[in-house]
C-alpha cells in the first residue's frame, strides 16, 4: 500500500473525533499527516450516546442537518421513585448527533486540509529509539509495515495501547471505567424529540445514569453506563434489558453495542518524546457526564496544532507544552467536574428523590444546572464553591 510505504511528519492513530480533528489542525500547519484507523469505516461502529452541546460543535465544524438527529432545548431528570424534574434550555442548545455521519464529515475535513487517511490498518507497535517514538508498526491486509514519523498522536480510544508502548501508564482504574451498553430504539412512546432524559438511581444505573436521547419521533439513542464496581455484580447489558422491559416494553432495537467511557481525570502524562495522546486515550472525557466528543475534539485540536508547530519549527520540545495548554483550555474544568462526580457518584436513591422534590419547587424558569448541583450538594459546602466555579450561579 503506497500510503504506508513512505514517512510522515505526523501519524495519528485512530480516526474518531479526536484523531481527525488532530489531523486537520496538524495538516493546516502545512505538515504531512497520515491517519490510521483499525476499523473498516470512519464513523462506524458508533459507541456513544451522541449528545453534545452546540458550543462544543461550532468550534470545530459548522452544524449541518445531515448529521444532526435532534436539536435539544430541554433536560429531564428522572428520580428513582419515578418523579421527574425538567429544565428548559435555549433553543438548539445541544444536539443528538448521527455520529456515523458526523465522524465521517470530520474525516473529510481532515482530508480536505491535506491529511491522508487509511482505514483497516491495525497499529501493533511503535518504532522506538530508546524512549523516542519514531513511527508506528502496523498491519494492513495481512502485511506488516513500519512507517516512520516525527510525531505520533495516539487517539486510539478507550482501548488505547499506543501510549503504553511509549512507556506512559494509560490504563484506567476499573472503578472509573463506565461500562456501557447502548441501543438505537424505535417505537418509543411519550418521548419529546427535543428533550434529553437522564434516569438516576440504583435500579436504573448505579454509579452512572440511564439515558434516552431522542433521534427523531419515537426513536432514541438509549443506553446506560455503570462503574466497574457495579460490574462486579451485574453487567450493563442486564441493567439495560431491565430498564427497557420496564419503560419501553414495545421498543424495537435497530442497533446495539457495548462501549466504555473512561470517566477519570486526564492522565498525568499525555506527552512523551515524539508522542502526544488525545481524546479517550488521554482520558480527556468530562468525568462527571462522560461526555467526550467535544473534549476529544478539543484535545485533538491542541495536539494537532502543537504537533504541526513542533514539526514546522523543527523543535520537538514544544510537544511538552501540550498538557499545560490542555489544562488551561479544558482540563482545569475537568478537575472540578471530577470533584462533583465524587459528590454525586455514591448518592443513595432517597437523596436523588429528595433533590428532585426540592427542584420541583423551584419555578421552571429559574431551574438551572447550577441550581441543581447546589441543591444536590447543599450538605457539602466545599463542593458548592466548585459548583459556582463552573456554573457561575
Amino acid at each position, binding site marked *: 500500500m503506497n500510503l504506508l510505504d513512505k514517512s510522515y511528519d505526523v501519524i495519528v492513530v485512530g480516526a474518531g473525533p479526536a484523531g481527525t480533528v488532530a489531523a486537520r489542525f496538524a495538516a493546516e500547519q502545512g505538515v504531512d499527516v497520515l491517519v490510521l484507523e483499525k*476499523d473498516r469505516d470512519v464513523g462506524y461502529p458508533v459507541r456513544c450516546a451522541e449528545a453534545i452541546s452546540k458550543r462544543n460543535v461550532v468550534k470545530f465544524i459548522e452544524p449541518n442537518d445531515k448529521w444532526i438527529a435532534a436539536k435539544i432545548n430541554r433536560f429531564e431528570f428522572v428520580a428513582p421513585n419515578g418523579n421527574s424534574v425538567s429544565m428548559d434550555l435555549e433553543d438548539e442548545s445541544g444536539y443528538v448527533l448521527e455520529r456515523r455521519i458526523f465522524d465521517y464529515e470530520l474525516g473529510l475535513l481532515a482530508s480536505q486540509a491535506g491529511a491522508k487517511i487509511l482505514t483497516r490498518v*491495525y497499529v501493533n507497535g511503535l518504532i522506538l529509539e530508546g524512549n523516542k517514538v519514531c513511527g508506528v508498526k502496523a498491519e494492513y491486509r495481512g502485511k506488516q509495515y513500519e512507517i516512520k514519523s516525527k510525531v505520533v498522536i495516539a487517539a486510539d480510544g478507550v482501548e488505547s495501547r499506543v501510549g503504553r508502548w511509549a512507556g506512559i501508564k494509560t490504563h484506567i482504574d476499573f472503578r472509573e471505567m463506565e461500562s456501557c451498553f447502548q441501543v438505537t430504539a424505535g417505537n418509543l412512546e411519550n418521548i419529546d424529540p427535543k428533550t434529553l432524559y437522564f434516569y438516576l438511581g440504583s435500579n436504573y444505573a448505579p454509579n452512572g445514569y440511564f439515558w434516552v436521547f431522542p433521534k427523531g419521533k419515537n426513536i432514541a439513542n438509549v443506553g446506560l453506563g455503570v462503574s466497574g464496581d457495579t460490574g462486579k455484580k451485574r453487567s450493563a447489558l442486564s441493567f439495560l434489558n431491565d430498564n427497557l422491559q420496564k419503560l419501553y416494553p414495545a421498543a424495537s432495537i435497530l442497533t446495539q453495542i*457495548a462501549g466504555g467511557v473512561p470517566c477519570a481525570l486526564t492522565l498525568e502524562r499525555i506527552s512523551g518524546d515524539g508522542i502526544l495522546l488525545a481524546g479517550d486515550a488521554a482520558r480527556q472525557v468530562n468525568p462527571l457526564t462522560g461526555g467526550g466528543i467535544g473534549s476529544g475534539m478539543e484535545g485533538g485540536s491542541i495536539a494537532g496544532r502543537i504537533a504541526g508547530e513542533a514539526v514546522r519549527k523543527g523543535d520537538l520540545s514544544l510537544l511538552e507544552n501540550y498538557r499545560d495548554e490542555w489544562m488551561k483550555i479544558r482540563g482545569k474544568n475537568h478537575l472540578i467536574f471530577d470533584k462533583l462526580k465524587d459528590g454525586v457518584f455514591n448518592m443513595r436513591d432517597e437523596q436523588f428523590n429528595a433533590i428532585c422534590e426540592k427542584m420541583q419547587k423551584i419555578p421552571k424558569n429559574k431551574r438551572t444546572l447550577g441550581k441543581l448541583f447546589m441543591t444536590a450538594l447543599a450538605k457539602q459546602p466545599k463542593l458548592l464553591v466548585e459548583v459556582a466555579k463552573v456554573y457561575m450561579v
Partner: protein
Amino acid sequence: MNAKEYRMAKTGKLMIEILPDKCDFCGCCVGVCPEDAIELKEAEIFIIDENCTNCSKCIWACPIEVIRFNKEGVLKTR
C-alpha cells in the same frame, strides 16, 4: 512474589478467557487491563497469556459478560 507469580503458584495456570463470538469489541477490558494483556483488533480479541495475571478487572468491566474464568479455574464471579 508479584501478582502473576502468586496467581500461578496458587492455581497453576492462567484462567481468563474471552468468548470472541459473543464480543462487541468495545475495548473496556483493554482500557482497565493493568498489564497490557489484551489484544483487540477490528473484530478479533485475545488474551496475551504471558502478560495476564488473572486479576479479573476485565471481567468486572465487561458490559456484556463475555469474559470469564475458564472451566479449569475455580474462581467464579457474577
